[in-house]
């Protein structure tokens, strides 16, 4: 019997066993899922906007905004680098930075022309030669607030005179720098250096926080090194994003999947936005250290820190355990007093009709535009003399 002629190995792609196996179906299904994702692009972007509680300006580019209208980071931290150049020049103005979580920029029932706290503050202070800029992000942790302060300090042009921080109790659960902030650090060596130096300098006083900062920086450095070592990888990924919708939309898909996992967790554990959730002690302690570190560093650079407890909806149930929340407020007030930091409890400044609806119930943390103005007014009333006080800035710079 004549032996079968040996075939070229790659000819198997032309033969029946390959085409009757799962491979063609896999290719087809992969193609179909890419087409589907391309179709969903719009809804994924909309989901991202909602996920960040961004208002109508959330997806706009800073560069396309009319002059003078960018007075806070519209991207809520996602494109910090894009909004950074819009921080008023500290060399020519007295600069105040307002920082905190989503309450600072989310506006319930938003109307065109509505103002956020930072904008209302800026309007109030501008006639006195003081400029206010908002740097807020959803769920901003104290580690991230410290990162924002250090980044501002790393450049004389952005070094503020006053750093107002709206402190939110349940953000003491959060840790880590979000990917967008990591990206910012990678691109700003001066901010990186200051972050690293500060951690080393204060390691003896705040060991947990210092170690966490150094670990965060180490992780970023490792990722950066891998990236720098392989510029080719960045090019290949860029190409994949151009060709494959799933690669281009992977961040939005990731957020969407995480959201589903979050809903699954809530369903599984019976968690609601109002479920009483005790603080996680280790995270709480770390966040306490970050906050104190922030105050100490600001003081070293001659920056006045102001802390206030953010307003809460008096009629909405919140997830805080009353004793823990009370003890948090006492602690914050005591720390501020010890460190000479102006403090106010603005918990009750916003009346119940100026809040909104969230997930079918009264929103306990985000309010309508009137409350943004009201909060700004409360800040001016409590701290106005500090905001516009003449300082010896020329001396210290």
């Amino acid at each position: 019997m004549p032996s079968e002629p040996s075939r070229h190995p790659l000819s198997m792609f032309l033969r029946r066993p390959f085409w009757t196996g799962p491979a063609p179906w896999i290719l087809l299904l992969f193609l179909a899922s890419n087409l589907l994702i391309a179709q969903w692009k719009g809804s994924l972007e909309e989901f991202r906007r909602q996920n960040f509680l961004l208002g109508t300006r959330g997806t706009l580019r800073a560069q396309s905004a009319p002059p003078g209208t960018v007075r806070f980071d519209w991207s809520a931290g996602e494109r910090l680098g894009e909004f950074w150049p819009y921080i008023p020049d500290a060399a020519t103005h007295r600069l105040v930075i307002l920082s905190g979580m989503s309450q600072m920029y989310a506006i319930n029932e938003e109307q065109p022309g509505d103002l956020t706290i930072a904008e209302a503050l800026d309007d109030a202070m501008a006639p006195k030669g003081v400029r206010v800029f908002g740097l807020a992000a959803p769920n901003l942790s104290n580690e991230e607030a410290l990162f924002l302060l250090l980044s501002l300090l790393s450049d004389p042009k952005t070094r503020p005179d006053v750093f107002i921080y709206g402190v939110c109790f349940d953000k003491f659960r959060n840790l880590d720098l979000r990917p967008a902030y990591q990206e910012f650090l990678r691109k700003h060596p001066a901010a990186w250096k200051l972050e690293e130096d500060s951690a080393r300098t204060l390691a003896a006083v705040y060991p947990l926080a210092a170690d966490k900062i150094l670990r965060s920086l180490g992780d970023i450095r490792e990722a950066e090194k891998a990236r720098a070592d392989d510029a080719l990888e960045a090019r290949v990924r860029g190409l994949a994003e151009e060709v494959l919708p799933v690669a281009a939309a992977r961040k939005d898909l990731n957020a969407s999947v995480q959201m589903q996992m979050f809903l699954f967790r809530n369903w599984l554990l019976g968690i609601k936005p109002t479920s009483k959730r005790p603080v996680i002690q280790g995270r709480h302690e770390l966040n306490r250290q970050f906050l104190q570190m922030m105050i100490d560093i600001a003081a070293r650079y001659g920056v006045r820190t102001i802390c206030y407890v953010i307003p809460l909806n008096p009629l909405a149930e919140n997830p805080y355990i009353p004793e823990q929340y009370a003890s948090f407020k006492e602690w914050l007030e005591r720390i501020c007093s010890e460190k000479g930091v102006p403090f106010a409890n603005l918990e009750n400044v916003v009346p119940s009709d100026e809040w909104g609806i969230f997930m079918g119930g009264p929103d306990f943390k985000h309010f309508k535009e009137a409350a943004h103005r009201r909060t700004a007014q409360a800040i001016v009333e409590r701290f106005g003399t500090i905001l516009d006080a003449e300082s010896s800035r020329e001396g210290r710079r």
Partner: protein
Amino acid sequence: MIFTSYTYLVFVLGAFLVHWSLPASRRNVLLLLASYAFYCSWAWQYGFLLLGASLFNWAWGRFVLPDAKSSKPLVVGILVNLVPLGYFKYTGFMVGNGSAVANLLGVNWHPALPEILLPLGISFFTFAGIAYLVDVAAGEPPFARLSEFLLFNGFWPKLIAGPIVRADEIREPILGARTLDVADLSAGSWRILSGFFKKVVLADTLAPIADLAYLRGSSPNAMDGVFGTLAFGLQIYFDFSGYSDIAIGTARLFGFRFPENFDWPYLARSPQEFWNRWHKTLSRWIRDYVFTPLTFAARRSPRSGPLWLVVAMAACGLWHGAQWTFVLWGIWHGLLLVLNQTLLARFFQAPPAGAPPARIRVWTAAVVTFAAVSAGWILFRAQSASQAWDVLSGILTLRGGLRPGVLRENAILVVAVIFLGLVVGQFLRGSLGKWKERSPRIGSVARVLEPAFYVLLILAVFVFDKEASAFVYFQF
């Protein structure tokens, strides 16, 4: 270029197409060039180290060892292999410990610790080189041609994280003509996909959880210790076995069959079985090239066997990293193996399957083994012995009760779901084949669902990629 990069996929695809397009006689040259290109893409200078080690081992195995009248040339060959490993991996460790000992003795010596970049995969190619020399000294035929040995020692899929392949396991495909069919393509691609999924989706998700529980200076509660350690045990398994999968899958696409490296180790019913399922090629290496020679050398005192087992496992620990915690981890496993063979031999002995009491015993043994292995991971993951003790004492004293001090319930849930998935996967693995045999309908349904399953894994790799990591507001 790392295994889980997009570039690696392009690299493999390009090499695959060129390799199988070339005449058989040119394929080894292509693989050799590709291997060195892969290795040098990380740090080209160290390509010379790999080349130098390969040249030495080939020449020593080809010209010196076959005519050796004593074991001295073999010892010299092994020492020459160990010198670069010792320098690159253990200089800092030795200097640090030397300084500590000197200070204990009253000598004020504080040398600056040298910053030495560890060459990629040096532990693996050193062990492969030593195994080759020992095998040749024991009578295995050496590679006659240098190019063949260079390919054996430098073939890129096994360079980064093993498996530690012996010469006789891939001699045939190196010397003879390699073949490829749809089954190879399918098996190789599946292993690569599985490796990507394990590393990118599972290991990288678990890593931050373990990191947080083992944050230096924190005092984790019992729940943090348990779930942080569980997260680390799963992370290291998925990380390591994922890399092995990619190595085995890649090799298969080029006509090589590497030995398996992991076989569902977390349901092992004894420490001994664990080491027969965990990093199998390393266990084999330690057994054949450390433990056996040690016991042979001490054959006149058979009671010293347990001691050599502990010594061999301590060496295994030191191989994993230049820190005392790794050595302690090795000693812990050595002690477990000794117990397995002595006091607890009956407990860990596999009984005949079937009867309910036996089943309970098997399960109990599996749970005890898993707990003992996990306790070992505390030593492996901790940054110091005192941190390991802090985590362990937190668990043993139920610090914080059932309330975590660091980890959120999200993290605990993720760890629990992945762990349960692993356990269910273990059972499905055995049962699915039987179900398919019993019911053709199940077989046809599985065939229909198979492509969708693969596509889901591919999409998961894209979506869970570190660079895709997105911030999500809803975290209450």
